[in-house]
């Protein structure tokens, strides 16, 4: 299904490319030993290198390089065994050295692809042009003082991966799917925490429009969009703005724009004429980055299962539905809990139901994260969970009882308490007891039995309910049904 905007002059197609900036998960900055934790006191995580003191020199953080390579492998991308760091020169108060160290001509990762899946189930391959490592800048705070700006250098020098897509994206939906899938890949790889509110992941969106069959028209770049929803909205409003200009006989100017989500519009930040001349040149303080073949191969073989592979396996090998596979895989912590349950020998479909049902409710109720399920209280909650679920498999308790026990079991309950609760709800599977209860109930409801036999089959549910009531809810529902059916002929 192609996405088309109908203009006055006919249909328009949109062309989008994304530059995603992803903060690398690493204890220290790209070229200094300073810490990177979010939310620290301003200027408390700044080394002399980050503040660009005289004579200070950058030393490349090996872990950041490993993270970039891992991400590249996760994007099925070419890893460049030799890459280089360049200086991007410009003056700004939150850029202490007057240049950002980035990779301009020779990025560490070359071409790759991300497969996206759309709502209608169709898939598309979106090309990744490159991934490179660069430093983040500090933060300017303009709202702390009437005439002065405050500078926080905690973020200055933090490692970023810039992941540039090909202009392969043709709709807001595709853009959203691309960002979500890219984010998920990095979450699984643990190379970026994907936290868009904290700015760990942000996107520059390049948008242009064209008539079918045309080559590219002038594009505008929308800077620093910080949610998937805003990416989609920004593309839509920017495309409409451009179409309006073209259809009015005007020309779209190449420029950098900002998206204002409150007003639902983009506005000009700077035009091409004001564009900086960044005077890129190789950073003479750093040698070319040469990767060791065996090191990269080691990371390749240690690469974990990526979301697309996981979804496929859940569906084809484990028999989960498309919905179940997507919902579980969309949250790496859910997937981890799901797989932990599988490891205990429980059946996949049953585990998926539990993860998406009662365990999700439990997680909300307890205000914990899914990731804690397998390990909280030394794993004792997880053992309780599997004990309860196994009781359903062995027919000891009903599905309703499983939910009830899980919801009412404190996270730190001892196993003895859980076993007592199971015992309490253990269902009666003794056929003779069930037959007795059924017979008693049928005798007590002779008129209704007549009614049923005359064709009011809806009464079957009533009979089941009466038997269960008589048995205090412990009758094995399967057996109760069976006996009732037999008796009612």
């Amino acid at each position, binding site marked *: 299904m192609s996405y088309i905007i109908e203009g006055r002059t006919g249909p328009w197609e949109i062309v989008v490319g994304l530059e995603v900036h992803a903060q690398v998960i690493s204890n220290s900055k790209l070229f200094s030993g300073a810490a990177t934790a979010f939310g620290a006191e301003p200027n408390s995580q700044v080394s*002399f290198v980050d*503040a*660009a*003191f*005289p*004579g*200070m*020199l*950058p*030393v*490349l953080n090996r872990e950041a390089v490993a993270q970039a390579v891992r991400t590249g492998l996760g994007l099925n991308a070419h890893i460049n065994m030799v890459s280089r760091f360049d*200086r991007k*020169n410009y*003056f*700004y*108060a939150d850029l*202490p*050295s*007057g*240049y950002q160290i980035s990779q301009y001509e020779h990025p560490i990762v070359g071409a790759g692809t991300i497969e996206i899946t759309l709502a209608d189930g169709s898939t598309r391959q979106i090309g990744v042009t490159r991934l490179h490592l660069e430093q983040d800048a500090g933060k300017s705070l303009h709202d702390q003082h009437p005439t002065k*700006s405050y*500078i926080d250098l905690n973020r200055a020098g933090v490692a970023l991966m810039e992941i540039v897509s090909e202009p392969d994206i043709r709709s807001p939906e595709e853009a959203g799917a691309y960002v979500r899938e890219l984010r998920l890949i990095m979450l699984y790889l643990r190379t970026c925490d994907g936290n868009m509110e904290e700015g760990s992941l942000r996107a520059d969106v390049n948008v242009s429009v064209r008539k079918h069959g045309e080559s590219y028209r002038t594009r505008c770049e929308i800077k620093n969009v910080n949610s998937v929803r805003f990416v989609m909205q920004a593309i839509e409003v920017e495309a409409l703005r451009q179409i309006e200009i073209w259809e009015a006989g005007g020309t779209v100017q190449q420029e950098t724009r900002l998206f204002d989500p409150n007003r639902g519009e983009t506005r000009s930040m700077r035009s091409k004429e004001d564009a900086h*001349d960044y*005077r*890129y*040149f190789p950073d*003479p*303080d*750093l*040698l070319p980055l040469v990767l060791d073949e065996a090191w990269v191969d080691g990371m390749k073989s240690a690469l974990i299962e990526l979301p697309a592979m996981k979804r496929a396996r859940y569906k084809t090998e484990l028999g989960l539905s498309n919905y179940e596979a997507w919902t579980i895989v969309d949250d790496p912590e859910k997937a981890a809990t799901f797989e932990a349950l599988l490891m205990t020998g429980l059946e996949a479909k049953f585990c998926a139901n539990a993860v998406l049902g009662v365990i999700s409710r439990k997680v909300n109720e307890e205000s914990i994260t899914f990731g804690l399920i397998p390990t909280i209280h030394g794993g004792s909650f997880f053992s309780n969970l599997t004990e309860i679920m196994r009781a359903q498999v062995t027919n000891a308790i009903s599905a309703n009882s499983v939910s009830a026990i899980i919801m009412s079991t404190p996270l730190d309950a001892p196993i003895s308490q859980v076993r007592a609760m199971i015992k309490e709800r253990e269902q009666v599977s003794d056929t003779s007891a069930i037959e007795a209860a059924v017979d008693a109930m049928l005798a007590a409801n002779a008129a209704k039995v007549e009614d049923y036999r005359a064709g009011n089959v809806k009464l079957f549910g009533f009979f089941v309910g009466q038997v269960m009531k008589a048995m205090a809810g412990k009758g094995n529902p399967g057996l109760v049904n069976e006996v009732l059916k037999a008796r009612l002929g």
Partner: protein
Amino acid sequence: MFDLTLAQARDGLRKRDFSARELTDAYLGAVAALNPKLNAYLLVTEAQARAQADAADAALARGEAANLTGIPLAIKDLFCTKGVRTTAGSRILEHFVPPYESTVTANLLRDGAVFLGKVNLDEFAMGSSNMTSAYGPVANPWTRRGDNRPLVPGGSSGGSAAAVAARLALGATATDTGGSIRQPAAFCGIAGIKPTYGRCSRWGIVAFASSLDQAGPIARTVEDCAIMLRSMAGFDPKDSTSADLAVPDYQAACHRSVKGLRIGVPKEYRSEGMAPEIEAMWQQGLAWLRDQGADIVDVSLPHTKYALPAYYIVAPAEASSNLARYDGVRFSSRTDGGDLTELYENSRAAGFGAEVQRRVLIGTYVLSAGYYDAYYIRAQKIRALILKDFTDVFRTVDALVTPTAPSAAFGQGEKMDDPVTMYLNDVFTGPANMSGIPGLSVPAGLDSQGLPLGLQVLGKPFDEETVFAVGAAIERASGFSALPGIRAGVAA
């Protein structure tokens, strides 16, 4: 006491002929007496020096003498020294007190050295005369025979060279980006070596041009340089361009014979218009080596003539970026403005001198879109060819010998009309920076006006030992013993 070389003073200290405190006090006294004439020291750290000397005496008394225990040195004011103001010769760092110690000076302190103070230099090490310092020019302790007008000590390490030549220190740290150790050493009649790029850590040295900058010693003799370099050099994980190689015993290398060594004479250095006295000195140096059993062979470095123009693209390009951090926002001097851009403009206009501004402008220009390929990329290609020239000749020779500079020291204020004339001072020294190879200047004799002339020895990458051996051989043969008029220990 001032007649002692660093090696002799070290022996004297170890034999307890005199104490480190006596030695330091003597040098501090000489500095106080002569510095007003020379302006070599920008800052004398008397109290710190005496404390270091006392610590050295204690170490000597315990029999724990390290390589430089008790040796008073001068530190070029480009090396960041913890708690001691470091200006880089610039107004913009007038009030900068580093909270860290550069690796090279930390290595010297580790080995027991005493720091007398910080010495003058061309602003941000940009210059060949010490005339660009924001803190006034340095006078060369040498003057022309019968002419008292002050001469330049060379640059950029002019304060280092003047201090050592006038015996206001036993040795000095220096840096060399295009000749800034070797040319002032030659102008002041002493020795200096720029080791191979990567031999000394650049960490904590105010950067001029990162791919060319290299620290090294200036001292009275080749052997003294060898002793100092042993302490200064070494791998530093904080400098990504530092070489992870063991540091050899350079002092021992000074006593190696040059017999059988092949010494190359690059024909391209014999430029038209070379001063006859320089040419004669060069021939004399080669003759001394031949007499000691070396083979002298003519070689060609065909891309030499492109080295200087390429150098004056690469160095300003890197400088323009390296100096961007002096923006008035943090440690550098600030001149306020109406907005951020004005703050930058005002601070940098007030803080940088004319030569620094010129090089920042040149560097910005050659890196600009549309000019980058024509200038910077071509300069880097030339650089590769220059390195190839050296790699090729070092397949057949062990070292090269050339003049250090195209002239002896010139007068303060001379060669100032046209920057290109000044830049020509680097013509023989620049190629070593462009290729990273080690180069040493050794005094070889006096010209007709009584000014010292130096010869340069160039060697293979990380083969400073051969460079020291050849330099020491020239030094022995020359018997150079002339002394400047202004020096400690003589009545003014």
